[in-house]
Structure formats: structure tokens, C-alpha cells
């Protein structure tokens, strides 16, 4: 789960990270009022779940409340990487002497959270990583011991020669690490971490992503989800416990398991079709899940044929068959459906489908080809 910059900053402030004051506005007037309260130059920052906000024009300096109002007017409602901006963060501007990068990410290779720091912070840190990797220090952390004080100092001295600044930075590393662990993070980033002209070390921007698997045990973090910042169909799918990504094609896919779902989409493309979505109903499927999946797929008017590809392991194919029967009884389909189903309880599933007037195949290639043909015919009609 992604959270907004202002939410990440609230979390980090709670752990003691020094961050300039700021508040969220949803209208230009609110932005002006916040700027007036802060009583100094402010930065107006688009709050969307995407990187590259600055380059897209979503981050602007304003020297007065009037200017903040105009900046907010321009930014609110703009689109950044397909996402509409509904909120801006209005935050006190800082006089920057230097910019560093500090990040933690869960790393597959070392199987640990890895700290990454660089004195060459700012927006082009990926280029720094690619071209001058020696300017980045990476340090895997054993979570059983946590970030040890000497490790925090080593990271801090990589950024700052000045002892006072290094100590301040080491403190921030500890606070960032605690926030990452206690929020169930998969990513936590301060970019830039700046030294101000007054010599203070402060965090000017923050990003955090949360491991979805943590949310059940962290209700306060789960409550940070901003559904208005997500695609409606993806919100609907998540509420139904499905993984769904909308695409532009016309073959609606309903598959169990992410790998098979991707392979099914690849095969649709292989046979000349275009998938309308990625949809994984997951394991332990219940009939209700299938009903919800069909509702989401059929709400896309581009869909000209529906393809079920179910290979039962932990998923019982009879659950899926019952779901298809229930869903289509409630809402009869207006587009053709092709069902491929095999694995756990296959015989029962096939009987349920046949008794209810559906035909099903056990062959994936055959089913995909048929769905592509039907979708193409549906498009022509």
C-alpha cells in the first residue's frame, strides 16, 4: 500500500524526525490560509501515489499566501502519471545548503532491509546509482538486532564530515528505521535529507510504502489508505480480496494465481488478442469471490468475451463453478464466456457447470484461442 508524502511525514515526525511544518489543503483557499499561518515562503506539493511529481510540475515554490493560492489552483486537479491530484501539501520552504538521499528497502537478494545513502541526493538519484555506484553506500540490516549505533554512524559519516551533522543524521537513520519496522514498511525514503544554511539536518520529502500483508495487524496504518487516490475498479477488487489491474484489451480474464494469470494474458496476446485485465482470485477461493470477480470484469464495457482459467490446487474448482452459476443467475451475461477448469474437485465442478448449461474445457490453449476468437467477433458486431 502506498501512502502520501504528508502521511509518511506524520509517521516520521512521530518518531522524532525533524521535518519543516506543513498541512494538507484540498482547495486553493485552504492552501493560502496554511501559507499565511506558516508565515514564510512555502512549497506547494501534489499528493499523489507517483514519483516524478516535481518534473511533472506538481511541486512549486510560493513566496506569499496569494502565490500559494495560485500554485494550489494550478496543481489541484492536474494529472500526474494518470492520477488526478486531489490534495496538496503546503509546507515551509527551507534554505538548502546540501541534499542527501536516505532510503530503506526490503531487498530480495540479501533477504534483509537495506539502507542506502548518498551525499548526491535529489531527483536524479537513479542516475547516480547507475553511473557512479561508489557514491552510494548500501548496508543490509539484520532485523533481529536492528540498526546498530555503529552502523548508523557509518551511514551518517558517509554523508557528512561534520561530527554534529553526522550525529544528527545518525539519529534520523535510527528514527527512520524504527518508523519503517513499526509501520510494516516495504520502503521508506527521505529524499532529500538536507543541511540548511543554518546547519540543521532536516527531512524535506518522505515516501513510504507498506507491505499489504502487515495491514491486518496495524489498523492505524491501514486507516491511512486513500481510496480517492486509487482506481475505483482496483478498490472494488481489493474489497473483494482479489488482485485486479485494468488493461486496455477486450478479453476479460479471471484466473487463480498470479503466475498463471500472467501466463494467460501472455497467451491471449500470443493468439492475437488483448487482455482487458489482470485478475487473480487467489487461493482458498469461495463462490462469493467469483461472483465479485465477474461483477468487476463485466463492468468494463470494453470486454467482449470472458475467459476463466482455473487450475485448482488450494482453490477448489467446484467453488469456482458454483460462483459462476450464482453470478450468472443473478446477472445474466451479455458477452460469451469460455471456461477452462481443471485440478482439485474437477469432476464435481464439471458436473455443476454442465447441469447449469455451461461447457468447460480442460485445455488452456484451446480455451484462450476460443476466447480471443469470440472477443474479435464481438468487436466486429
Amino acid at each position: 500500500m502506498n501512502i502520501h508524502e504528508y502521511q509518511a511525514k506524520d509517521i516520521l515526525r512521530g518518531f522524532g524526525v525533524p521535518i519543516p511544518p506543513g498541512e494538507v489543503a484540498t482547495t486553493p483557499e485552504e492552501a493560502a490560509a496554511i501559507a499565511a499561518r506558516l508565515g514564510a515562503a512555502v512549497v506547494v506539493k501534489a499528493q499523489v501515489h507517483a514519483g516524478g511529481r516535481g518534473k511533472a510540475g506538481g511541486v512549486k515554490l510560493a513566496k506569499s499566501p496569494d502565490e500559494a493560492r495560485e500554485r494550489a489552483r494550478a496543481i489541484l486537479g492536474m494529472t500526474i502519471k494518470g492520477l488526478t491530484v486531489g490534495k496538496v501539501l503546503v509546507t515551509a520552504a527551507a534554505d538548502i545548503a546540501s541534499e542527501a538521499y536516505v532510503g530503506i528497502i526490503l531487498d530480495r537478494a540479501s533477504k534483509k532491509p537495506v539502507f542506502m545513502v548518498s551525499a548526491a541526493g535529489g531527483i536524479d538519484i537513479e542516475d547516480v546509482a547507475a553511473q557512479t555506484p561508489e557514491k552510494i553506500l548500501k548496508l543490509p540490516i539484520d532485523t533481529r538486532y536492528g540498526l546498530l549505533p555503529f552502523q548508523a554512524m557509518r551511514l551518517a559519516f558517509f554523508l557528512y564530515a561534520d561530527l554534529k551533522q553526522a550525529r544528527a543524521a545518525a539519529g534520523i537513520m535510527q528514527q527512520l528505521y524504527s518508523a519503517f519496522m513499526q509501520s510494516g514498511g516495504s520502503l521508506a525514503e527521505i529524499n532529500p535529507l538536507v543541511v540548511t544554511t543554518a546547519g540543521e539536518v532536516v527531512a524535506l520529502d518522505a515516501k513510504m510504502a507498506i507491505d499489504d500483508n502487515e495491514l491486518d495487524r496495524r489498523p492505524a496504518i491501514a486507516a491511512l489508505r486513500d481510496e480517492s487516490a486509487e482506481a475505483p475498479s482496483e478498490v472494488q477488487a481489493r474489497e473483494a480480496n482479489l488482485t485486479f489491474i485494468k488493461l486496455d484489451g477486450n478479453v476479460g480474464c479471471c484466473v487463480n494465481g498470479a503466475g498463471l494469470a500472467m501466463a494467460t494474458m501472455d497467451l491471449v496476446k500470443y493468439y492475437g488478442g488483448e487482455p482487458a485485465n489482470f485478475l487473480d482470485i487467489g487461493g482458498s477461493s469461495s463462490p462469493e469471490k467469483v461472483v465479485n470477480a465477474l461483477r468487476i470484469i463485466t463492468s468494463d464495457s470494453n470486454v467482449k468475451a470472458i475467459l476463466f482459467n482455473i487450475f485448482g490446487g488450494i482453490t477448489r474448482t467446484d467453488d469456482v463453478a458454483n460462483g459462476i452459476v450464482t453470478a450468472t443467475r443473478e446477472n445474466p451475461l451479455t458477452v460469451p464466456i469460455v471456461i477452462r477448469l481443471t485440478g482439485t474437485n474437477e469432476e464435481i465442478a464439471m458436473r455443476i457447470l454442465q447441469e447449469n448449461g455451461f461447457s468447460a474445457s480442460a485445455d488452456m490453449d484451446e480455451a484462450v484461442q476460443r476466447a480471443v476468437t469470440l472477443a474479435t467477433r464481438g468487436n466486429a458486431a
Partner: protein
Amino acid sequence: MSIFIDRGTRVVVQGITGRDGSFHAKQMLEYGTCIVAGVTPGKGGQTFENQVPVFNTVADAVSATNANTSVIYVPPLFAADAIMEAADAGVGLIVAITEGVPVLDMTKVYPYVRERGARLVGPNCPGLITPGESKVGIIPGRICTPGPVGLVSRSGTLTYEVVYQLTRAGIGQTTCVGIGGDPINGTSFIDCLTAFEADPATKTVCVIGEIGGTDEQEAATFVKRHMKKPVVGFIAGQTAPPGRRMGHAGAIISGSSGTAAEKIEAFQQAGIAVAKRPVDFVQLVRERLP
């Protein structure tokens, strides 16, 4: 021959009385897996299906039955503890089926298991099957048949698909291993490739990967340097849309985005035959069997 599990595998099922645990314990028993014990705290002393004794702890189960392998079906927030309990009880192979285990939990579990000399497969995986001998996990037994092909996959259901296609074509398997798709898992492609290379019964190996991470690229390097047996590979997600990435750390850590194209190229450069569709495994494997 086989890798990791065989006729001598003695299984303890953690979470044997739950919905998924009981269903799949029955399926394993029907397949002929030697299930010697079950564990559900508070249900010690009961008997599952009139034949499997249930214990309160894994330690009790191991000391009473000499179980050497555990399979875990407990809910996600309890999985880390269950894995560590099995490792602590001296179980040598731990297969965690549970989906949705917090990744930060795994950062503690992985070194814990390793330091006790145990092998963890998963989490979020379908487990293993050595056709005709033992099944530990949820891979449907009827789609497998004994034979000369070793198979390792990050996916669950896509594994079934490929095994099913092979079996339908009369090509059997030594062992099929689903290592799971989570960011941190116990057993890697390389662990399985090493074992298959050393297993005299395995003549050809199938590797099923997907987008994300760099495990497939590392597997490709290993195949090129260390394997004599032919390998056939597949990468799922060629049509997957690029995700909206947050932050910079992902690109810094991997230096690449883990696309299907990159992985396919790595496979090809390592001399791995790449299947375009799951069904293409049949022809490519057949050409490479002695």
C-alpha cells in the same frame, strides 16, 4: 531418485485441523504421503482421520514420531512463529504453504532457519511432489507422474499447468518444487538447480520464472557456469504493464526493473531453451531427453 522428499519423508502437518490444513492433509494421505503427526495448539491428544495423532507442539510431535519434514497451513500472522517452531524442533525440511506472510517477519525467520541447518521452502508456495513417492503441500497428485524431469517454479498454478502438459504428453517428473513468489523465500532457483544437477535420475530441468526481482538472472548465470544437464525455461508476465513505482530505492537496489524481456535474454544467453507458451515445454523437453 528425487530431490528433497522421497518415500522416507515423515511429515508433520502444522495447522492440521484448519480448513485448508485438514483438506490438504487428507489429499496428502490419499496420495500416500507418510504423515506421522499433526500439530494444533490445544488439540493435542486428538486423532486426525482416525490415523494421525495430533500434538500441541512441533517438539512433542517430533519426539513422539521422528517427523523429519513439516508442512505449514497456519494463518499468515502465525506463520513466522510456526516456521521457527519447526526449525527449533529439529525438522530438516519446512514447507510453508501460507500466503500473505509479512515480509519483515521473513527477515527474521530466514536466518533463524538457516542457523539451525534446516531448509525452508516457501512461504506462499505450493510445496513439493516426488511423483509416486511423496507429496508435501498442495500440488494436485493426479497431474504428476514419475519420470526424468526436474521442475522448479516461482508460481503455484502455473507449475500445475506445465506439469499437467508434461504428464499428458507422457513425460514424467523426478520432483516438482514450487519455491513461492514472495520477495523473501527460503529456497532459491539455484538451490533446486544444484540439487537437480546432483540427482542422477533427473535428466532435464524445467525452470518457470516470472517478472520482478533478479532470481531468474542469477539462475541463468548458475546454469551457464555449473550445469551440464539441459534446462528449459519460461517467464510469465511478458504482457504485464509496468507498475507505478514509488520512490527510487527499487531501481537503485536492483539496477534494473526485472522485466520479462531481460530475463528471457538472460536465459537465452545461458543456453536455456525458452518456451513461448506453457505447452511448448513438451516439445523442448522431449528434444532434450536422452
